[in-house]
């Protein structure tokens, strides 16, 4: 796949001489009082037809703002263009009146958003939403519109298009919805397609399919694609050219192969190095009695019946068995809906199992919940801290509840804050004063305050930027070495799992399909599903080369 990306770039280089989109000296102003005056400063780039330009950056780098500026969706006057031009086939989009802009949108410039659910109207059938686009831009009879809508759905590889046309978005899966959004954007054969993190909300296997679809449509139609992403793996899969953004400024720009292989700027190099490589080292087998023993664990959710629907039962866990030794980390890997989070919630005791047994140090589940020796770290750093309670109180309250004197608990809290890389003064501050990565550190300190033997970490880094992700993973490793807790590490990202875990358990539809030491599972996966997952991970040029050499 890496080779095709490089050769595709070369083929198109000769075919396209007139630029499709040129951005010159673009400045976009933030409202007064923001952390910097300009969201985007001096952005310059050119996109030729049939090529893909990736804008990469971390959250807050201004990458999505550029996309919004091109399609004219900036939340004015909150954000407004202050200088520069955006030339689309020679016309400056910044000075174009709204009526002309409306004619361009959909017909000449298509857009695919991050959240496929939010991009579709939940109360309108898929077919009607596609036909609406045609109705606005073309004067076609109803039957012709229907035919075109069906053809567009067919084009994005959806099965049973007639049926999908007559269903509401809630009936479709995330990947199918994103296909519909792409069908909608591509239906009028726009010359420019803007994709704003189109695969971030999707599973890794679905992501691979959607990226292949976008590349395929682009090749067939010669569309220019402006692709916004935070993931260098995705960049290496599809980009011809790359722009790396940092704090509103272009840090580095150039052909994808060059930027990924030999990044000129230290920041780009740092971002690329921060990506977990997906290779695991062999680790010693500790032996000893298991800390956590799970046998035949089952969990069934019953959905209540509605007027015309019989009550249903969904088996989230179909008899899970695993064991984990003290101080070890087991990675639970799987896609959304595989039951991995349910397993985590059962282990900490937030839910009760419907069958099977779960023991920590030989004690059954119910007894271990309230002595606090099994703790959890959550995915969303914003939802996991109470906005109305100070950081110190949040951490100290656990030990205080257990009977530790208040002064002692506070002293320990300040120690822990320093241990996780924050300052002791943070104890008196409130969650909204901290960034996502810092909040995740607070969450870790809160778990550590209870002296846990086992920590369940449910996707603890998936909401963080890649460089912050690397820091938090480093922190986990050093803390585990020092404090010797065991960890059940739940993640959808095999690369992260490979780096963190001694053992891996791959879950699919409520069952463990493969388990074993991480390095073995990754090197020689036995189950087809594990192979699919591994193949779907976007790889960097540098890594694939390293493996070939």
């Amino acid at each position: 796949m890496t080779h095709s990306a490089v050769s595709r770039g070369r083929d198109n280089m000769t075919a396209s001489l007139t630029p499709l989109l040129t951005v010159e000296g673009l400045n976009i102003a933030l409202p007064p009082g923001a952390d910097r005056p300009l969201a985007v400063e001096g952005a310059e780039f050119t996109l030729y037809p049939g090529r893909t330009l990736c804008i990469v950056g971390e959250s807050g780098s201004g990458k999505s703002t550029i996309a919004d500026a091109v399609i004219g969706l900036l939340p004015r006057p909150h954000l407004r263009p202050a200088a520069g031009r955006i030339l689309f086939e020679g016309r400056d989009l910044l000075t174009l009146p709204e009526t002309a802009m409306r004619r361009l949108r959909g017909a000449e410039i298509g857009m695919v958003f991050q959240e496929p659910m939010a991009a579709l109207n939940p109360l309108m059938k898929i077919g009607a939403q596609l036909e609406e686009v045609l109705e606005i831009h073309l004067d076609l009879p109803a039957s012709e519109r229907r035919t075109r809508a069906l053809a567009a759905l067919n084009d994005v590889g959806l099965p049973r298009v007639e049926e999908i046309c007559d269903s509401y978005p809630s009936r479709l899966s995330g990947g199918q919805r994103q296909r519909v959004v792409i069908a909608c954007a591509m239906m009028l054969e726009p010359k420019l397609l803007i994709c704003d993190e189109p695969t971030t909300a999707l599973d890794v296997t679905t992501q691979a399919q959607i990226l292949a679809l976008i590349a395929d449509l682009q090749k067939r139609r010669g569309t220019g694609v402006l692709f916004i992403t935070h993931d260098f793996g995705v960049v290496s899969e599809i980009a011809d050219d790359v722009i790396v953004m940092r704090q509103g400024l272009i840090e580095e720009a150039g052909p994808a192969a060059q930027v990924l292989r030999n990044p000129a700027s230290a920041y780009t190099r740092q971002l690329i190095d921060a990506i977990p490589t997906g290779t695991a080292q062999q680790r010693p087998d500790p032996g000893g009695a298991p800390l956590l023993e799970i046998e035949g664990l089952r969990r069934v959710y019953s959905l209540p019946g509605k007027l015309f629907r019989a009550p249903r039962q969904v088996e989230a866990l179909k008899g899970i068995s695993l064991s984990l030794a003290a101080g070890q980390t087991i990675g639970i890997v799987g896609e959304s809906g595989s039951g991995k989070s349910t397993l985590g919630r059962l282990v900490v005791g937030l839910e009760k199992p419907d069958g099977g047994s779960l023991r920590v140090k030989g004690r059954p589940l119910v007894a271990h919940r309230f002595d606090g020796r099994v703790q959890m770290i959550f995915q969303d750093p914003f939802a996991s801290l109470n906005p109305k309670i100070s950081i110190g109180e949040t951490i100290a309250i656990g030990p205080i509840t257990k009977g530790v004197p208040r002064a002692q608990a506070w002293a320990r809290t300040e120690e822990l804050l320093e241990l996780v890389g924050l300052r002791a003064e943070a104890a008196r501050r409130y969650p909204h004063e901290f960034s996502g990565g810092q909040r995740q550190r607070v969450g870790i300190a809160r778990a550590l305050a209870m002296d846990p033997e086992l920590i369940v970490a449910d996707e603890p880094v998936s909401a963080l930027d890649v460089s912050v992700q690397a820091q938090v993973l480093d922190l986990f490793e050093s803390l585990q070495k020092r404090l010797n807790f065991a960890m059940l590490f739940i993640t959808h990202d095999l690369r992260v799992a490979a780096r963190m875990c001694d053992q891996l358990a791959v879950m699919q539809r409520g069952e463990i399909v493969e388990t074993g030491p991480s390095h073995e599972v990754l090197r020689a996966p036995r189950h087809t599903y594990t192979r699919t997952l591994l193949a779907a991970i976007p790889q960097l040029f540098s890594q694939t080369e390293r493996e070939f050499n």
Partner: protein
Amino acid sequence: MTRPNLLHKMFSRADVWLATLVLLVIVALAVAAPLIYPKGPWAMGGRPFLGPAGDLRFPLGTDTNGRNILAGLIWGGRVSLVIGLVSTAVAVSIGVLIGAVAGYAGGRVDAALMRFTEIFQVVPGFALALVLVAVLQPSAGSIVLAIGVVSWPPVTRLVRAEFLSLRSRDFVYAAQLQGQSSLRIMFRQILPNVASPIIVMGSLMVATAILLESSLSFLGLGDPNRMSWGFMVGASRTVLRQAWWMATFPGLAIAVTVLALNVLGEALNDALGSQSGKR
């Protein structure tokens, strides 16, 4: 950091300034009533049916028994404000307690408590208040109780809905894993996050409570020992055509107070609403 911001947001509007000023004047007069008219509102000091501005001692005139209308207004303000505030406090306390338990516990407890709440919602509120006051004998206490009892269901619904959505937040799970008791989680962890909508609803409920109290007094079910705006309107309704001022001034007092409270409540809602939206 949030507090000055909130005040700044509220007081960028002229109507909020006016409403605050009106309320401050009413409260100041009510507090100072014993100093301004030490003889109380019942003292029959002048000629009956004296029109406004006729005599400097009675700027708003006198009623059918020669009592000073202005004194009645000022003393009546005490009753209206105190009953409005206390009965709202009663209603909010009942509402928060039941709503929090229902929302946090969920399941059968929630179903049972909500059916109980609905019993109060299906009975017309004012009729229930009338019956309660009549049965318990009119007094400040029974009026407060009656208004509290008929006004808590909306608070319960609001608090329950908020608790239902907040109890499945990760920070609540984290608190459970720390071993905190349910009571502590409900009132220390979740309740502070529901404070804003409760405050807004409470400020609007004070206005409704004042109206209810006035209506009860109008019908003669007020506390017989205390002058109140509703009683003044009620007592003068038979002579409305001969002496317009007797009903008009207390009526205006009710209208202005309720309006000011509503403006403040709405402003508080806007300010708190936009703040939580920014997070």
